[in-house]
């Protein structure tokens, strides 16, 4: 059973990212809640990936604060979050070694690494591929491995950047099932997508971005039934909006 403590909520305030005077990201206030699935929605170039990378600490913002206000001590916050990228980064090693490498970096001992890796690989249906080179797997298998690798670290919070964008419907379905399983175990998620179908099935909360700006934050059912911003309305109606 998972440890029920969590680093969430994450409170983001006055977040701005600028490059050469151009505002790439502008987020006044957001609260990422524990055990909820937050979907970051918006067209290409809206700033969804940047928002994820800033929240995960891969990019330093120009200004603003991100505070994890949950029960975890600050020393555990880095270790208790994971990120899955749109194009999965596969180390030039076997499937199993990709998982054990992540665990090694997290400071897990050798025998424990082997046990967790075997469990995780089995849990996500990758046992038959365990000794295959990760880089020769199909796109769907690589994304499953990337999620399994992140899950092996037992995160409180997973950031997922367009995890199904390059996948066929079957592979996308498998990824969604993995995410449902992880959510059932209490993992909170922030997922970017421009796939409305996925967003409708998955989201508890929606953050809608347009041109780097957070223009709407709402419960999913409210957002999809009555979006308040013209940008979101246009996006949901599949209209172009400039």
């Amino acid at each position, binding site marked *: 059973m998972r440890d029920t403590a969590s680093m969430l909520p994450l409170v983001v305030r006055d977040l701005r990212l600028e490059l050469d005077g151009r505002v790439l990201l502008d987020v006044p206030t957001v609260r990422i809640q524990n055990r909820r699935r937050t979907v970051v929605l918006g067209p290409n170039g809206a700033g969804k990936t940047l928002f994820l*990378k800033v929240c*995960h*600490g*891969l990019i330093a913002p120009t200004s603003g604060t991100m505070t994890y206000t949950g029960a975890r001590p600050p020393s555990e916050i*880095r*270790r208790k979050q*994971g*990120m899955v*990228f749109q194009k999965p*980064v*596969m*180390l*030039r*090693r*076997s499937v199993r070694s990709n998982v054990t*490498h*992540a665990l090694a*970096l*997290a400071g897990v001992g050798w025998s424990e690494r082997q046990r967790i890796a075997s469990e995780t690989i089995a849990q996500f249906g990758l046992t038959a591929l365990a000794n*295959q*080179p*990760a*880089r*020769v797997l199909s796109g769907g298998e690589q994304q499953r491995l990337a999620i399994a690798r992140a899950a092996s*670290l037992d995160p409180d919070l997973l950031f997922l950047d367009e995890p199904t964008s390059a996948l066929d419907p079957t592979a996308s379905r498998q990824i969604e099932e993995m995410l449902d399983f992880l959510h059932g175990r209490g993992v909170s998620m922030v997922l970017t997508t421009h796939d409305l179908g996925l967003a409708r099935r998955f989201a508890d909360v929606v953050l809608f971005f347009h041109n780097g700006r957070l223009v709407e934050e709402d419960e999913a059912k409210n957002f999809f039934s009555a979006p308040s911003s013209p940008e979101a309305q246009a996006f949901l109606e599949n209209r172009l909006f400039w």
Partner: protein
Amino acid sequence: MTAVTCAGIVGLPIGAALALARFPGRTAIIVIVNTLMGFPPVVAGLAIFLLLSRSGPLGGFGLLFTPQAMMIAQFVLVLPIIVALSRQTIEDLWTEYRDHLTSLGANRLRSIPTLLWDGRFSLVTTMLAGLGRASAEVGAILIVGGNIAGFTRTMTTSIALETSKGDLALAMALGIVLMSLTLAINGLAYGISRVGARFTGRA
């Protein structure tokens, strides 16, 4: 082989560090290292000769005209090749792995072992480039080794000597033997590298 192995032990971590570190003057160092890949062997030989000669700062070790002096010369010539080529390999790999490794909490220093391991097949090629330089070396080792028969005479210096003596047949035969050895070593390393790459799915 000893010189190349030592240059690999020293040069690969330096190349990786140079690929990942950000400090003032880094670009200048990269340009200098790249330039040193073409370091004229006779100039390197002369510098090492001056260092190791009786009146030089390292003269007390009595290394001049010994195999050790020749290895030092080869080490000096091979090291920039290994540093420069490994830096490029590791930098390319870092571009691909950076977000993932940072996400896992690894800083640049902690990422070096991962990058060296995952770049191992490209780095074999780097080591082979160093071996090629060392095995083809004449100028520097002739100066610091003295081409003493049975002691510091190598195939390349023998070829130079026999050619100057006019025994072209012997020089050519030695050249063929040297080429065959180099071909065998490169073929073996390439084969191992390809087999390894296939089993780890290198793209």
